[in-house]
């Protein structure tokens, strides 16, 4: 409280000011400052004080005086008679009572009340020091709970049985959204206010008490829009309103338009297994984006990928997409986004690959081009429902890009015959089909110290409409259930170790009706049964994949052991031409192994139970 320091030099005016400050701070009844000159010329300053005390109190009460004018201390006229003094005190009390009634209750919970009242009853007389302690206790609770703008402004009703603590909690009086350019100057933004406003939690709106957690939530929500490079949520006091807080949201918008060209060279195994460039000519992608159209987060994206920049028509894949959020209106609480795109892609078919016995199976390439349109309803931040229509043309080609109507078979005498399983429904190599697609994802996962915990269920349906080549009518459905079970309760916090997790995963896929080979379910692969190549176990009408993985935290990453199984449920023969048999695949298989996560890469050793051999794999991303 005292600002004078030993060995400091002070003027008489400074000493006078110090005395005044101490006298008017309300803690002391009387303050005296005495200075005695020492033989060496320095001054010994003695401050003697009498602490203000009031009568002991039994009750404690806390009121929220935010947005109310401060009480001004009324000077008592020293010439008043005793009766006048009494009247004065009574009217003061009445005024204060009215103030208490007008004030709002504060957020302080019962346990804190109990603590304070215990403090008061222990103390006996109420002193300035005990008031300080009460102020510290109350403010600490508010600040710990995130109410960073809360303050104890006054104590009232002293010298009565009930001590009243006046608190300003930090009520929000205004919400400002401000756009800044890269240098920090205020500009007119492109994004429309309702787009930002709908991402704010209710607790940040006018009339609520400012809480820093609400601010953090707002930051996360606005960030997920993907429209801003920098977001700040700052409270500042409102000059025009006592105790009011203005919440300022400062946003720096990302560039609306961007274009990018990236080139790549593929490294593939060459002679003797040495890695070589697949080709001198690079492949690459040209992409462009036009974002936040009309300030409503609508975007138009396009990308064109080729494996040979110098002769692009060899192998061209493109995708153009238009995304239109808030189709129910930007003020609607529903969050539905409309997406439409036209695409063209080319993939190697895992249906026409061989089992472990066959080395060279002539591959079949599946070209898909078409348009799709769908609506995604974001039910929570993680769960969503998507439904829409897809119209596509599928062409199956052989290695030399000629249209292939059937897979090729390697004859026992080494020759090749073209009477393998048919590749398309129409048997012409080109199929056109239109179907409805729906997907519902229920995702209750969350992160506990970096480990994913919870469960995720996905159900997807493709419903053929009988429109297309040979009027395809089908119902192709998949159900995926994944459970991440936390095996041990751990304390949550930064730097704390994650819990061990047991992952249980099941995937069932089935189809009733017309099923061409390019839509068949395949078994084997890093996202199907680890340890086998994609499609190595077979292709079938329905499949079941099961996996279990036990994750154990070590140091600052985790190691795991796993076991997986994939089964065609006997439905390989229900696929026209039975490609599983023709290419000598088992139809089912299991694998097991162990691995460790190193940053973004998983290094694992997997044993293929069908052949009994194991191998080391490096994979990016998550298996589940």
């Amino acid at each position: 409280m005292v600002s004078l320091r030993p060995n400091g030099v002070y003027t008489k005016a400074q000493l006078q000011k110090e005395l005044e400050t101490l006298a008017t701070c309300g803690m002391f009844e009387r303050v005296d400052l005495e200075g005695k000159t020492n033989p060496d010329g320095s001054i010994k300053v003695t401050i003697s004080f009498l602490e203000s005390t009031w009568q002991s109190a039994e009750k404690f009460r806390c009121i929220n005086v935010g947005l109310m004018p401060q009480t001004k201390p009324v000077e008592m006229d020293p010439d008043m008679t005793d009766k006048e003094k009494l009247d004065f005190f009574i009217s003061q009390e009445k005024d204060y009572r009215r103030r208490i009634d007008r004030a709002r209750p504060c957020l302080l919970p019962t346990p804190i009340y109990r603590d304070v009242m215990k403090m008061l009853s222990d103390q006996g007389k109420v002193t300035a020091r005990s008031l300080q302690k009460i102020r510290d206790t109350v403010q600490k609770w508010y600040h710990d709970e995130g109410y960073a703008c809360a303050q104890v402004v006054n104590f009232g009703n002293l010298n009565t049985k009930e001590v009243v603590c006046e608190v300003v909690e930090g009520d929000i009086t205004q919400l400002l959204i401000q756009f800044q350019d890269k240098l920090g100057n205020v500009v007119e933004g492109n994004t429309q206010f309702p787009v930002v406003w709908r991402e704010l939690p209710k607790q940040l709106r006018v009339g609520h008490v400012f809480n820093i957690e609400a601010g953090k939530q707002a930051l996360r929500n606005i960030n997920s829009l993907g429209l801003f490079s920098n977001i700040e949520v700052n409270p500042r006091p409102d000059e025009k309103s006592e105790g009011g807080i203005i919440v300022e949201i400062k946003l720096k918008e990302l560039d609306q338009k961007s274009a990018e060209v990236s080139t790549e060279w593929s490294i593939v195994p060459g002679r003797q297994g040495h890695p070589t460039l697949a080709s001198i000519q690079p492949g690459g992608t040209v992409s462009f984006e036009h974002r936040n159209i009309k300030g409503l987060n609508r975007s138009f994206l396009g990308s064109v990928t080729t494996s040979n920049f110098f002769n692009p028509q060899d192998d061209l894949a493109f995708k153009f997409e238009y995304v239109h959020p808030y189709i129910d209106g930007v003020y609607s609480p529903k969050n539905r986004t409309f997406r439409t795109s036209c695409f063209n892609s080319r993939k190697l078919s895992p249906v026409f690959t061989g089992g472990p016995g066959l080395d060279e199976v002539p591959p079949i390439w599946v070209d898909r081009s078409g348009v799709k349109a769908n609506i995604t309803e974001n039910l929570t931040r993680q769960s969503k429902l998507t439904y829409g229509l897809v119209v596509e043309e599928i062409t199956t080609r052989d290695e030399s890009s000629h249209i292939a109507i059937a897979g090729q078979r390697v004859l026992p005498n080494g020759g090749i015959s073209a009477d393998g399983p048919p590749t398309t429904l129409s048997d012409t190599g080109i199929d056109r089909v239109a179907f409805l697609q729906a997907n519902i994802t229920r995702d209750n996962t969350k992160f506990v110290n970096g480990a994913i915990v919870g469960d995720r269920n996905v159900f997807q349906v493709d419903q053929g409409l009988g429109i297309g080549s040979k009027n395809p009518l089908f119902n192709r459905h998949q159900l995926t259930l994944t459970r991440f079970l936390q095996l041990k309760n751990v304390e949550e916090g930064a730097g704390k170790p994650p819990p061990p997790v047991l992952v249980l995963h099941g995937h069932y896929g089935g189809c009733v009706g017309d099923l061409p080979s390019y839509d068949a379910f395949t078994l084997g692969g890093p996202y199907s049964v680890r340890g086998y190549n994609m499609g190595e176990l077979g292709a079938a009408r329905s499949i079941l994949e099961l996996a279990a993985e036990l994750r154990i935290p070590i140091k600052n990453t985790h190691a795991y052991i796993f076991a997986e199984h994939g089964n065609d449920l006997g439905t390989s023969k229900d696929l026209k031409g039975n490609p599983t048999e023709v290419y000598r695949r088992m139809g089912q298989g299991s694998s097991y192994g162990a691995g460790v996560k190193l940053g973004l890469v998983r290094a694992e050793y997997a044993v293929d139970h069908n052949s009994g051999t194991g191998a080391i794999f490096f994979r990016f991303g998550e298996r589940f």
Partner: protein
Amino acid sequence: MAGQIVREWSGIQQFPLATQTKLLEYLGTLKQENVDSLTILVMGKGGVGKSSTVNSVIGERVVAVSAFQSEASRPVMISRSRAGFTLNIVDTPGLVEGGYVNDRAIDMIKSFLLDKTIDVLLYVDRLDAYRVDTLDRQIIKAITDSFGKEIWNRAAIVLTHAQLSPPDGLSYEDFFSKRSEALLKVVRLGGRIKKQDLAFSMPVILVENSGRCNKNESGEKVLPNGISWIPKLVKTIIDVVSNGSNGILVDKKLIEGPNPNEQHKWWIPLIAAAQYLLVQKIRGLIKDDIAKESKAAWELRDIGAAKRKF
């Protein structure tokens, strides 16, 4: 094969008299049941003696056989008639090539048999082989998948090279019994036949096609157990035909199999309706998730739900 003149079963005359008598007697019983033709399908691995058996039954060298040469590359049907009865035997290429079941051979056999009815299947293997493995099961499975489980109700196992001396310690009967059991087990597993089905009592016939085959007093070819095998083979075939089951008509539907794309198609509207309800149910569950989600203290206090507890 209507319109073609079927050759006379002249080979029957080179059998010893005792054999001829018995054969004609059996043909007679067939005629009494108004059966005037039989189609016998002979299948098995390569080199087991299918063509030799055909030659033995017909009594002529109709099919080329050579110890080291690979066999017939395509199915061939030998037809002979006698006393108003026509015998058709279909000799087939071996079903195994390169250690795997030869799908092309099976496809060829199926197309060859289009619109014909198989009365009897003779599955041929050697008596003097000791092991039965996965490959045998795969062959049985392939036959079952191609012609249906019912073919095993009209089948008999033929074990060739039956004139052998069994290994030390085993009598001929014991050896035969063990070998039969092993093969019958494989047929049951590969054909997914239940114990109580007819095929479990599938006959196993011993056959010795070489010229060295011992003969009895009547000059008939006999086996080490004393049985004259040619009449026995024919009798068994006739028993199989008369066991109450039906022959297998190899029509287009059988060859192509039931179209899996058309199966259960009419279920689709019901399935789609059930899926729609499932999606709505999951949507409801997600709504519950939102309600149950544990809110932080600051949210609860704000909506007045904290009740001053914290």
